């Protein structure tokens, strides 16, 4: 009997510790999934364990003005390579050693806060604008003074600096780099063949364009499970604005007319056959790789990282076009609103080397290395004097320049983690045609109970 008690006790200990470990570090279970968005995603095959890459002559952290920098990239990614080059140059010019550690998406997401709480010496780190300013807001140093001293804003993107201040609670706590914007990307060749001369600005124009594309024998719109909620979010925001959309999603206000209107608009498109036949079962990256890049589908609502992600599949002759999510009839928001943002660099409020850290930020986000980053990752430059964008994404410039209102990720539609999966799969079914608008709304209501 004693033995049995012991056995049960031991088993419970084992199980509980397993659960405890799971809670403490999901990353230790080698969280690994290919990341949809180079710039946005969180589930890259990234070992949570330190994938430490020292920049050669890194001095013991904190001593002699040396810096410790935790980055969200992998050393092998274009972004990681460009940052490494900037850091090397910084060290060569200033003699300040930098301990640059590439943590990867999951590594930094799971590991940064515990490390900061434990008092690890980290001078600067980078991640997505919203996560840095919201989730890690309490660890950030106010950068207003440092930015003023360096006259940082003379050549910075004003819109993005404003966005950083907005999410930083009115003051500058992070510096943007590698900007991105979330909009419709399309295959110019298909548009030309279908005889579409101008990118759609309204829902009716999009409808007309889709009809022409369908007639030309192509799939007008495709998407993947990873991004489908963004379509729902954008349409809702065009109708009632972002704060209201978030309110509906968080509060489960599925009776609001906008939800039905959105569902009806998409049900209408589904009925007209505008969506890919396989949209309901497209697991990322099936839609973007097998349909859009292969030239069978014309449009995809995605971030400006898309051309880079599919460039090897799409080929050199693929000409990209870009337009902001169209306006809808009777809606509040225009095409000047979108989810745009950037990765940001921030300085630990406890850093003793803030000035040097800010200098390093300038190296990465200005001039030569900003340009290098933009070239390597086919991304948007952050420095306003780097006016030449990589050719693949030149089409994004007018869209980015036209932005006035900023939405968060998925235009607020993913603000309620308990509802995202339900919105996602029902919207997939709606676009796939297996449920109608009423069915979509009913499913959301049912899940909210």
């Amino acid at each position, binding site marked *: 009997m004693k033995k049995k008690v012991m056995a049960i006790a031991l088993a419970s*200990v084992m199980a509980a510790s397993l659960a405890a470990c799971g809670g403490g570090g999901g990353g230790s279970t080698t969280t690994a999934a290919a990341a949809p968005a180079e710039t*946005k995603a969180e589930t890259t095959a990234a070992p949570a364990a330190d994938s430490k890459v020292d920049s050669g002559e890194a001095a013991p952290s904190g001593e002699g003005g040396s810096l410790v920098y935790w980055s969200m990239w992998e050393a092998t990614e274009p972004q990681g390579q460009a940052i490494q080059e900037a850091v090397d140059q910084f060290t060569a010019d200033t003699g300040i050693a930098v301990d640059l550690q590439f943590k990867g998406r999951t590594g930094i997401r799971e590991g940064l806060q515990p490390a900061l709480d434990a008092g690890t010496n980290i001078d600067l780190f980078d991640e997505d604008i919203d996560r840095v300013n919201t989730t890690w807001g309490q660890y950030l140093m106010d950068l207003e003074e440092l930015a003023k001293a360096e006259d940082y804003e003379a050549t910075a993107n004003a819109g993005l600096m404003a966005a950083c201040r907005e999410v930083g609670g009115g003051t500058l706590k992070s510096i943007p780099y590698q900007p991105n914007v979330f909009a419709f990307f399309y295959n110019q060749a298909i548009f030309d063949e279908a005889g579409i001369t101008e990118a759609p600005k309204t829902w009716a124009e999009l409808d007309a364009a889709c009809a022409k594309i369908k007639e030309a024998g192509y799939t007008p719109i495709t998407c993947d499970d990873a991004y489908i909620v963004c379509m729902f979010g954008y349409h809702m925001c065009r109708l009632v604005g972002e704060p209201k959309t978030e309110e509906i999603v968080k509060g489960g206000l599925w009776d609001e007319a906008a939800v039905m209107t959105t569902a009806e608009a998409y049900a209408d498109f589904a009925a007209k056959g505008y969506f890919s036949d396989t949209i309901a079962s497209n697991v990322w990256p099936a839609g973007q790789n097998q349909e859009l890049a292969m030239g069978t589908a014309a449009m995809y609502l995605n971030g400006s990282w898309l051309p880079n992600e599919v460039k090897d599949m799409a080929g050199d002759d693929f000409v990209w076009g870009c337009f902001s999510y169209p306006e809808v009839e009777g809606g509040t928001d225009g095409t000047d609103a979108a989810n745009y943002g950037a990765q940001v660099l921030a300085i630990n409020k406890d850093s003793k080397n803030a000035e040097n850290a800010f200098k390093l930020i300038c190296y990465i986000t200005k001039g030569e290395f900003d340009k290098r980053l933009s070239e390597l990752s086919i991304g948007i430059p952050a420095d306003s004097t780097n006016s030449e964008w990589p050719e693949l994404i030149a089409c994004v410039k007018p869209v980015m320049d036209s932005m006035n209102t900023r939405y968060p990720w998925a235009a607020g539609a993913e603000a309620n983690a308990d509802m995202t999966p339900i919105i996602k799969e029902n919207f997939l*079914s709606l676009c796939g045609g297996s449920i109608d608008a009423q069915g979509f709304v009913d499913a959301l209501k049912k899940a909210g109970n």
Partner: protein
Amino acid sequence: MKRNKGMIIAFLAPAVSIFAIVFLYPIIRTIIMSFFKIDGITDPVSKWQFTGLANFIKLANTSLFRTSMWNLFRIWLIGGVIVMSLALLFAVIITSGIRLKSFFRAVIYLPNIVSAVALATMWLQYVYSPKFGLLKTVFSKLGLTALSKVQWLDNDHKFMALLLAYCFGMVGYHMLIFASGIERISSDYFEAATLDGADKLNQFRYITMPLLKGVFRTNITMWSVTSVGFFVWSQLFSTVTADTQTITPMVYMYMQIFGAGNSVTERNSGLGAAIGVLLSVCVVAIFWLCNHLLRDDDLEF
């Protein structure tokens, strides 16, 4: 005697203290955390807000979490039946003296060596692809047009698609455990049974099965523990954001602790801890049941 006591303490102390720090402390902390609202997982205790049973009540009232528990149960039960039967079947075949035994054993075990990411990509982007997938090709070659048009990754089929892909990789591991259990049984029993005129089926029914009870228990416990930690496959089958067909409690826990998808969502490590506690209770219950239902202490061989 006194000296002896000192020695006992001296030798036990390192193990006990490490056990206490590495196992006991996290368990107790996790249990305590489950009664609090905690934003960041490493927030100091002063920031914790006591909420009593609120975390558990919230879990019970969240349809997504209930779905995740239901999925876990389905994975455990349906997957368990599939994996255990296939593993046992293969183990019996492999230990029956067939030729190329080690080759087949290696082939069946192979998926365990390949990374889950690679395996899942193969299943998602190739086997289940509605454009050029293996299933589509095979079914259309066989003239089964209706089946060839099925979208295996849509909402109606995704769970089974996930389960099948997962089981494919798990059979080899449990087969090895079964095979080692069967090999442990002395061949004398089988020889004697053969002389007495028992056929293979009866030998399996009356010799192999009873003597494998302990191995069954091991396998079921191992299966339960790995099922409870079901995470990677779920993540791979629903990139970035979870969906109701693939979500498991571990994925839900991750969402609560580190935020869901690309959005900045509300975090509550206390809720995550509560999920951990619930899962532990499940595993203990299964272990207890196995111990009671599959006693093997009445047989010695």
